[in-house]
């Protein structure tokens, strides 16, 4: 038992500590060794579709590789946060990443993403919808592979539009939508919470007037200019501000995200809503569970995103997911093989049916099975053809955060001041003169 103390060399306590630390090291998880290379696919939360695809492609690879999924946080900015930090850290486990398009430039600019090999590009993008393809490019290079594309439709309650005498086969404008809701004392489903959805909405309003938020998205931080302080910016602020000050989105607008606006739309005061297609699957599921009435589902219609000007086609939001490969991944070739497997059109179709996320490939829409689950598939394809991406700049996060801060709560948005303030705020933040 223990040496006597007072001797200079470490006695038992040191050994106890050492053993404890060693135990800690042992317990901190060593994975079993495998001969098959493991590709880690960082996925955004969905309904389990990506995990299924990972399994399918692992089986198809017949031992060439094994795909394991790892879940990222729920919202896009947090996903970006996690990935950007790890990419900057030179993490070699980032084999495949599900990336939200607006954050791609920031990751591509410093070379964090492995360039897409020509054969993969050819195999995966021959019939990709134009908007979706643009979101996967940076500096004229394909830096990620489009997996699915998303856009918003205008959803409406037929009972409300009939009452208002609107012909929904014709394009409607925001002014008409606002007027109809006001007249009938109904509420609009919009996303007024301080989140990425605010930028999505504002960008769609600006783009629907054939203008972009940024003058030159590829400008350096110190040279960046916005188009907010223009007639178009004011018109966009006017629409948002009117809905806010008139209380047209209900009392909970300040915390209203995609899901809350859907619940509002499903309620007695629902009238119109701009939202992603997931609302259809979610509403249908609620009807199947007996939570909602079948009458409600029958009362729901859809059309293209509302216009700002009567004569200009609307530019609905563009969302979706592209798959990128980390520049420090040790299995880049295998990762691109796996991506080719994942984004096959039939997989995209299947993913749409099971998870409600629309394909980015034109041909994936040709499947007969779609019509049954998504009677609006054609409307989605049309919307995707007109959809406009959010500004593609390495400073997207700052710009989006600034917009969210200035434009929420929407009851405080004023056409004569908010756009100008947002403009100077963004410019000063990017010059490092102000905090966000």
């Amino acid at each position: 038992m223990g040496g006597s103390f007072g001797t200079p060399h470490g006695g038992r306590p040191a050994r106890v500590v050492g053993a404890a630390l060693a135990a800690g090291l042992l317990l901190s998880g060593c994975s079993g060794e495998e001969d098959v290379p493991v590709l880690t696919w960082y996925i955004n939360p969905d309904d389990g579709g990506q995990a299924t695809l990972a399994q399918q492609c692992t089986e198809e690879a017949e031992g060439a590789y094994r795909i394991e999924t790892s879940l990222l946080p729920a919202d896009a900015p947090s996903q970006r946060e996690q990935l950007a930090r790890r990419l900057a850290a030179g993490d070699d486990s980032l084999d495949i990443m599900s990336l939200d398009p607006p954050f791609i430039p920031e990751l591509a600019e410093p070379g964090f993403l492995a360039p897409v090999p020509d054969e993969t590009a050819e195999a995966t993008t021959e019939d990709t919808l134009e908007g979706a393809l643009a979101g996967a490019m940076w500096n004229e290079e394909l830096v990620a592979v489009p997996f699915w594309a998303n856009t918003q439709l205008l959803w409406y309650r037929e009972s409300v539009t009939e009452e208002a005498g609107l012909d929904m086969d014709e394009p409607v404008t925001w002014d008409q939508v606002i007027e109809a809701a006001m007249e009938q004392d109904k509420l609009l489903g919009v996303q007024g919470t301080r989140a990425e959805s605010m930028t999505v909405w504002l960008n769609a309003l600006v783009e629907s007037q054939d203008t972009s938020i940024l003058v030159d998205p590829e400008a350096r931080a110190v040279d960046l200019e916005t188009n907010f302080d223009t007639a178009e910016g004011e018109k966009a602020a006017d629409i948002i501000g009117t809905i806010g000050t008139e209380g047209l989105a209900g009392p909970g607008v300040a915390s209203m995200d995609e899901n809350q606006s859907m619940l509002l739309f499903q309620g007695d005061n629902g009238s119109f809503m701009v939202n992603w297609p997931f609302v259809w699957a979610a509403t249908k599921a609620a009807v199947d569970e007996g939570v909602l009435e079948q009458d409600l589902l029958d009362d729901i219609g859809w059309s293209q995103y509302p216009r700002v000007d009567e004569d200009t086609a609307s530019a609905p939001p563009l969302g979706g997911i592209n798959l990128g490969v980390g520049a420090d991944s040790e299995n880049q070739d295998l990762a691109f093989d796996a991506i080719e497997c994942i984004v096959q059109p039939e997989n995209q179709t299947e993913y749409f049916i099971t998870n409600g996320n629309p394909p980015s490939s034109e041909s994936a829409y040709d499947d007969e099975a779609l019509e049954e689950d998504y009677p609006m598939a054609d409307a989605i394809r049309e919307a995707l053809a007109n959809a406009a991406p959010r500004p593609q700049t390495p400073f997207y996060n700052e710009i989006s955060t600034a917009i969210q801060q200035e434009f929420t709560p929407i009851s405080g948005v004023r056409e004569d001041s908010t756009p100008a303030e947002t403009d100077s705020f963004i410019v000063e933040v990017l010059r490092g003169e102000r905090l966000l």
Partner: protein
Amino acid sequence: MNGSSRPRGGTGKKSNRAKSEARLGWLIAGPAFFIMLSVTAYPIAQAVYDSLFSFRLTAPDDRSFVFLQNYLTIFSDVEVFWQALGVTLFVTVVTVAVELVLGFGLALVMHKALKRIRGALRTAILVPYGIITVVSAFAWYYMFDINSGFVNNWFSWVPGIDSDLDWFANFPTAITIIMASEIWKTTPFIALLLLAGLAQVPDELVEAAKVDGASWRQQMTRVILPNMKAAIMVAVLFRALDAFRIFDNVFIMTNGSANTEVLSLLAYRTSIGRLEIGLGSAVSVILFICVLLICFIAIKFFKVDLASGTDAKGGK
């Protein structure tokens, strides 16, 4: 009460013994000391260094030395930095004040309670103490949330509260809930410290005051409180420093919207959200200096004696 004194060896010839005792002392106390310091001292030094650069993690090639520019940017930013500092101080002052009153009440109840119910009270009061702050934040958030809460429904008879009130949409209501969750979770801690302080008040003094016909209030103000001063001060300082670092519940409930941003959240958003390491480190350093200042003021002007109880040596 001091620990019993150690018998000393004879005087003289202590140098060898003292030396080996010192060595032994550092040998067994060293590891803990080293780990504590290495996890805090090194990173804060690194943060000070980083704060002198303009450096963004996603633009690794654009790193440049800017000396104090980051600090200038921060201090000249009224809308963000001073606002966050103000909110942080406001939350600190209000929560500590409320907790002191509530905690004292709880301590008195526990102190005077009958044996039969003391256990139950202690158990109940320890639940908020032990609960995860994030869980407490969610619990309060869901109670008041306009979509899933029941508070609006329960209290619709109160003027100003109806089913349309979104607690987290404007500053006064949002900060109230944030502070309520903070107070709920941390009052037990203060109550326990004060309970220990109450136990230290000599019974004979209180009895003597009673005999002299002092009213309950006089007993409080002239006997009990003066004798508890040290305990109260320590409790206040610890809680104030803790409240000044508030982060979890703001992050969960509002994430800084409705002007509820606090300093910790600003530091987090700048360095981890925006990946602006230089600017974020500067905010972190300022936060650290604020904590030091609070400590310094407390010790210098309020004579908080943190060293009480550190004297391990027996009375001579």
